[in-house]
């Protein structure tokens, strides 16, 4: 693997995504939702605060818009990653790139790295803005370190689940050369994982979907351990989510390897 080439492709991909109108559109909506959550959602936080004099109320500020944030970020991630390779095929730029002394795996890794870095920064920005809106309109946390750990953990698991979405949708984009099919498949994925109950389709296999794994990390109904419950020690939460985080990482690597394998074998035309 040529790290320099991967870095260059990642840089190009990062610039492409950050200037994409889809991302701008999603970013504006997410910031608006985060602002509404801070300015309009404090009545619920006040109620939690009156019954529970801990930092749980401040942390619940994230949980209040967890569903709507995850859904929109999944839409953005799925479409941006599914269309990245089909667009380059359509424009013919992939053929120019592949004519260079470049391994196909470096191309896929670079694309993935660019998208992954972008999602990390995007999610960090959105989560920090959400936290800021809650602090401005409600109150700050009593334990800064506990709050910081949990916010960092939230960003980490959220980003990992988005990375899995990237790997999955990039694979769809590698399998099909038809942009219409790829966008429709990305949309179908979004519906199954975010809007419909994936367990209705997939049964016990639904545990493998990014949203289910993220949901398990944020709040596990079987063990009643949640990231946003300040009464549960952070270490206790961390040890309970290790299996799910491991599964996220393993799935991501497998899908990425499958994408590299398929892309390396296909005819460049």
């Amino acid at each position: 693997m040529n790290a320099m080439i991967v870095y260059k492709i990642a840089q190009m991909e990062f610039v492409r995504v950050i200037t994409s109108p889809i991302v701008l559109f999603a970013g504006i909506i997410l910031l608006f939702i985060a602002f509404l959550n801070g300015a309009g959602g404090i009545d619920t936080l006040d109620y939690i605060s009156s019954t529970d004099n801990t930092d749980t109320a401040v942390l619940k500020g994230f949980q209040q818009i967890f569903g709507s944030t995850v859904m929109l970020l999944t839409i953005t991630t799925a479409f941006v990653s599914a269309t990245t390779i089909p667009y380059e095929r359509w424009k013919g730029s992939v053929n120019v790139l592949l004519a260079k002394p470049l391994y196909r795996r470096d191309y896929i890794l670079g694309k993935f790295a660019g998208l992954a870095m972008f999602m990390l920064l995007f999610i960090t920005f959105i989560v920090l803005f959400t936290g800021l809106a809650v602090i401005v309109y409600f109150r700050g946390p009593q334990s800064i370190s506990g709050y910081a750990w949990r916010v960092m953990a939230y960003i980490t698991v959220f980003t990992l689940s988005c990375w899995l979405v990237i790997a999955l949708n990039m694979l769809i984009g590698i399998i099909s050369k038809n942009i219409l099919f790829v966008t429709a498949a990305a949309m179908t994925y979004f519906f199954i994982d975010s809007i419909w109950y994936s367990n209705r389709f997939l049964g016990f296999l639904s545990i493998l979907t990014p949203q289910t794994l993220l949901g398990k990390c944020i709040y596990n109904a079987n063990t009643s351990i949640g990231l946003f419950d300040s009464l549960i020690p952070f270490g206790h939460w961390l040890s309970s989510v290790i299996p799910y985080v491991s599964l996220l990482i393993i799935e991501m690597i497998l899908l990425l390897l499958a994408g590299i394998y398929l892309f390396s074998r296909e005819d460049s035309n």
Partner: protein
Amino acid sequence: MRNVLLIARKEFVDILSNRMVLFVLVLFTFYVFTLVYDFSIVVNGGRPGAKVGLDDNNGVAAANYILYMLTWCGTIIGIIIGCSTISTERMGSALNTLITKPLYRDTIINGKIIGSLLFFAAYILFIMAIFTAAFLVFCGNALAPYLADYFSRLPFMFIFVLIYIGVFLSLSLLVSLLVRDQAIAMVISVVFVYFSEVLVGQSISRNLSNILPGLGLEGLLSGLSPKSVATQAHLVFAHSWNDAYSAFFKILPGMEKLLLFMVIGMILSYIVFVKRDIS
């Protein structure tokens, strides 16, 4: 009129011969069988304590399974067809050829809308037929006493689902006419679904109402969501004390709202298609 019917027929055949649509239809047919199999396990007592509906009327519960499935899956079909009907012709430059023919532009869009709606009608009937056949095969005995309730609801559900899918069809058609990039058009259409979902289930409308109190924003925004109308329809149809007619009349105001959304979307599509350079 003849030209409209010709374009409608071509649109119907195009959609039906689209491999992606066929793939989705096969997927949904498979899903129908899994749903009905699950239903049969519950009604045959395979899962003690579980119920298929709100009460003991299996016919009402079975019909509601169809309504759930068609409103959920219909949304995705509506968006795919709404976006692809213009995008595929634009990508293949067939739209330019069509526009240069001695045809009014409104003839083209009328034909496309009629063809798409006819396809949806055929799709709904197909799924209903598959459901009915599967119900009768898997759990005919449990369903037999309630067949009148089951069949009496289907025509009203057909009308409701057709209008519901039509809303997403008209919105995605409008977006694909406005936005040249097909992926962005599809994202925007999906964002409509997102808003439809979050305005009901999440706290966005309540938060907005808290910021601007006294304007009734929570009810207004939730009411604008097609999902809220569908949720209300699911509830009304789920109760066996509502016979098919009374259930239909109870959801009629919501259906009128959906129809209005669909008509507004289509009128805007007309305006964009006739006035704008869409090539």
